[in-house]
């Protein structure tokens, strides 16, 4: 019975079925499954999708479809983790978002999905995120990594603003910062004082591991 739910959840993610994923997550809670096991099952599924994407067997719409399905189940499981007080193991906690003035979400979503697949705990703040919102999330979640995206040349300097703000509030040394997006280059990343940059989503995952030494 339990395995059936976990297997179903894994399948729902791999078949990009939001509704089914959400329903099965609810059932998992009803059946009092260990929420950490449920989370593991979903992570395995998303990792399989991520690997297939890396091999070239799957494409972007598949990756995002799987992420959406996982996203549909996630709040239910997180609520359960909180309620039961279970301790969640992860590689690290990531706060991610596209900077203020920029509404491009694709690259950021890819990175978040692959980071989740890798075993990071990812808080995706979405698009058009102001500096203060990033800071608040970093404090709230006690994040290890901040990942920022900017697609447009006009909005790239916004990343610098966030870093300045972190310095001002004495948070800069407590967190690793990675940046990406169409408008960002290696030089720019160095110039604004980020810890790392990578042009590709799979590369960003390797970078995240490197930054936290795991």
């Amino acid at each position, binding site marked *: 019975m339990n395995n059936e739910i976990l297997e179903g959840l894994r399948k729902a993610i791999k078949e990009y079925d939001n509704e089914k994923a959400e329903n099965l997550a609810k059932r998992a809670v009803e059946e009092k499954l260990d929420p950490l096991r449920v989370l593991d099952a979903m992570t395995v599924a998303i990792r399989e999708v991520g690997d297939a994407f890396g091999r*070239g067997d799957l494409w*972007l719409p598949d990756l995002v479809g799987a992420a959406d399905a996982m996203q549909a189940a996630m709040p239910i499981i997180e609520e359960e983790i909180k309620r039961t007080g279970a301790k969640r193991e992860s590689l690290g906690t990531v706060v991610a978002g596209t900077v203020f003035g920029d509404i491009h979400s694709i690259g950021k979503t*890819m990175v978040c999905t692959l980071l989740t697949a890798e075993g990071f705990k990812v808080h995706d703040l979405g698009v058009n995120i102001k500096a203060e919102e990033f800071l608040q999330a970093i404090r709230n979640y006690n994040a290890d990594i901040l990942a920022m995206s900017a697609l447009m040349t*006009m909005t790239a300097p916004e990343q610098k603003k966030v870093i300045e703000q972190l310095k001002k509030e004495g948070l800069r040394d407590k967190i690793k910062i990675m940046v990406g997006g169409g408008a960002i280059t290696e030089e720019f990343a160095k110039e604004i004082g980020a810890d790392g940059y990578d042009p*590709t989503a799979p590369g960003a995952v390797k970078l995240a591991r490197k930054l936290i030494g795991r």
Partner: protein
Amino acid sequence: MLKGFTRNFKPLEILSEEEIEAIHRGTLSVLRKTGVRFESKKALKLFEKNGCQVDYTDNRVRFPEGLVEECLQKCPSSFRVKARNPKNDMIWGGDTVYFQALSGTGSVDLDTWEPKTPTRKEYYDAITCLDALPNVHIIPWYTPWFGFKNIPPVMAMPEGLAARLRNSSKFTCSNYSMGCEVFNIQMAKAVGAEIRSSMAASPPLTFYEDAVENAFRTVEAGFILLITSGSVYGGTSPATIVGSLISGNAEIIAGIVLAQLIKPGTRIIVQDFSFPQNMRSGSPAFGAIEISLHQVAFNQIWRRYRVPIDGGVSYPGSKKIDYQAGYEKAITALIGALSGTNTIWIQGAMYGELAFHPVLAIIDDDMVGMIGRFLRGILVNDETMALDLIDEVGPIPGYYLNKEHTRKWWKLEQFIPKVADRLTYPEWLKEGKKDCLSLAKEKYQEILSTHKVDPPLTRSQEEEIERILKEAREYYRKKGMITDVEWKAYMKDLESPNYPYA
């Protein structure tokens, strides 16, 4: 007036009447049921006053069909646009085809093929080159590049327009960013030119306030408004090309309604700057064939609406001036021209929206000449069929090279490219194995050393431009949109002894 090219045969079509009708009805249904979001109080009020259903909680506007049809009819189907020099005026619409340069954020190094920021001199020289090329009819905004070294981003657009007005008398354009359209409009008026400015949708189905504000300003100034949508299908519009067309057309038509409500009869040209999504990287798939399918269908629909069409945006996916860039640019521009795009973007653009080079503009100009020659078609009459001549020459050993008919007609029939390699192998070896790229580099130097803008700005026009630029600089400095570091570098650039020329 600039004649451009005229298509002497029926445009290429890929949709049936019924299919066009289905797309049209779908568009109306999206406008009526789903609606379009306008982040502008001013626009929302105007729509409400004219019978649209406006929801102020999510800024959604829903359009009644009657109003849509009425506003489409108010768009002139063809119109004249005025350049600084009347010899460069154009008539857009119908079967006319004009070509415009296509910009990139920065320049590119022709050895490493990596992008780089141009200098003021390079910026001015590139405009001179575009002014000299016979098949560049329009020099749009941001052309050649988004800016140059030492100018703050916020001043890129006004400085760019000033540079184009100084170095070219061809029709040019401007756009909006941080309210700079106010200065741009003043500059155009100061030199007696019209400009085209734009109102760009943010797909899906959204217009932000800056775009709307620019539409008000452009229409009120009596200039031409380009209404554009630019989605990635599978990202910000449906993955199907016809679905993407509907979503894009709903945005464009919403823009048309606004423009015609502001001032009926406003000259409008429409564009859908959409790309498929590269499903590996998520970026737009530049140079893809679906762009051409999209353009043909778009042209078919908008020909029915009788609104002039802009498009055929020829960005290659390749990073180099190479085989791939050649075929990608060729197919996009050619399909646009065959299917009824009135103003086609092509000369100079390299990868994506990121690079431009004047040397490539020279090579592209040959391709445009070929397309233009094709559009003229074939003349069939007694003289061209040449039956008497064929009878006179007869079989082998007869030949045509020495005939009067050949001397007259070959020049009328053949288009001769300027920088294409047309040599035989022995000639080519003897000449040092030059390719089109090295021939274009030579041509570029020749243009820079001989071409003069006709006419140059008068002294009082130049003073007026400089006054407006000064006003803009101070305005943005005061607003804190130019930092101290930027300001210092900028002022140093202005002190150059050759200013404004590099």
